[in-house]
């Protein structure tokens, strides 16, 4: 445990230059939200929600860059120090992943608060349970489905590149891996569609304010829905979350195993 906490400390010392600006950028997004002053309430809400969606994407990109800076460490020789240290590759990989997930969770919880504020500005007020769903459940769900596997994949890719040197003849496995990724993603997507809704759903936002449906629930084909009570509540499918968590674990195990093969 002492070794793991030391590696987390090391991650923090190495990465605070990335993590603090990321958290600090929330002030920028809050400022950006206030700058949206179009008259129509629905349009204003849409633009602000779009801004926050951009913040989510940029945050994920920063986390991926933060976690994947293995090549520069290899060049500077710091990776050599880590490879020679007693903790197993799995411990190193888990420490990197845990730190990035911790920073990411703090970031997305804060984004959840910003969403709550954006809704409040539009006159949509959440009860306590819906607020918890918004600031805790949604970040957890979103990270499990999107961010966790992406971070784990970034780690796997970078360790793979370091281990098998994507240069000279070594570029072949790299190209195979890159070309294979969309195929695998498609295959996962198809598999997910087949098993969707086979398990009980995660019933978040059961008490979501009626005003949300009035504002957003009238998309194409759903014009007849004018209130929450008319909507057949389904919740969030749990299968993508379980599948992506399993995939994350597989990526992390593979990255930890490949760590043992890395030369420096």
């Amino acid at each position, binding site marked *: 445990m*002492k*070794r793991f*906490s*030391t590696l987390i*400390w*090391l991650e923090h*010392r*190495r990465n605070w230059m990335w993590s603090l600006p990321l958290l600090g950028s929330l002030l920028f997004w809050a400022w950006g939200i206030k700058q949206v002053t179009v008259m129509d309430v629905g349009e204003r809400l849409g633009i602000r929600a779009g801004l926050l969606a951009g913040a989510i994407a940029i945050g994920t990109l920063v986390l991926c860059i933060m976690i994947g800076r293995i090549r520069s460490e290899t060049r*500077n*020789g*710091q990776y*050599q*120090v880590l*490879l*020679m*240290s*007693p*903790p197993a590759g799995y411990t190193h990989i888990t420490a990197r992943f845990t730190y990035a997930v911790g920073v990411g969770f703090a970031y997305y919880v804060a984004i959840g608060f910003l969403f709550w504020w954006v809704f409040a500005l539009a006159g949509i007020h959440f009860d306590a349970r819906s607020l918890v769903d918004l600031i805790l459940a949604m970040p957890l769900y979103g990270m499990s489905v999107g961010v966790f596997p992406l971070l784990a994949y970034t780690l796997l890719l970078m360790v793979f590149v370091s281990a098998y*040197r994507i*240069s*000279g*003849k*070594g570029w072949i496995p790299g190209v195979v891996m890159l070309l294979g990724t969309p195929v695998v993603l498609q295959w996962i997507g198809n598999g997910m569609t087949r098993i969707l809704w086979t398990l009980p759903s995660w019933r978040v936002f059961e008490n979501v304010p009626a005003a949300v449906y009035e504002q957003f629930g009238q998309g194409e084909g759903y014009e007849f829905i004018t209130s929450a009570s008319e909507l057949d509540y389904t919740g969030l499918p749990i299968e993508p979350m379980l599948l992506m968590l399993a995939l994350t674990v597989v990526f992390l195990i593979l990255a930890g195993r490949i760590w*043992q*093969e890395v*030369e*420096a």
Partner: protein
Amino acid sequence: MLAKLEHVTKRYVKNEGLRDLSLDFPAGEVVGVLGLNGSGKSTLLKLLAGLLFPTSGTVTVFDGAPRSKRANIVFLGENDALWPWMTPSDAMKFMSNLYDDFDAARFTGLLDSLKVPLRKTKTMSRGERGRLRLAMALARNAKLYLLDEPLAGIDLISRESILSSIVQEWHTDETILLSTHEVAEAEGLFERAIYLREGRLALDVSAESLREGGKSVVDTFREVLA
């Protein structure tokens, strides 16, 4: 035998690091690994550290694969591989929490004797960083020390304090492999000298037998490798 190489060849993408090298390293020796640039010195030390894997042949350290024995091996690479934010106090935290054999009191003593400033490495000179890295390495109670060019790019005074620290901290049951271009300065340290030329073993000889023959390690370096 503490460490052993049997018919080891290491090929890189475009060149060959070592070719068919067989060596034994018993406990309690200070070995000079000598050769010109590109002769395979770093490759040899990295193979023993488990940072490289042989293309053919076998490398064993403490009767196992080097990577699996890394907790018992000290490797000081030629790269200036410390994080720029790291202070000696951070280095102590890092080492004492990761390595069971790290002696914090010994580290503090080495910082004093090597005159390492207590500030971030990014504000240290190359020599100061080199001395800090050596203090981190020598403060461990390992049995195998692999020191790759610890004197490279370091001023004369620092080189002397590094060499005297190596002598002071060496215990008779420990094996040190030291690669250096400063052959004359380090000569007094060596009990055995391994001369490498273009990845092959040119000569493996005890320093004592050289001296008995009226030769020094430096003379032999010129004779064998020139």
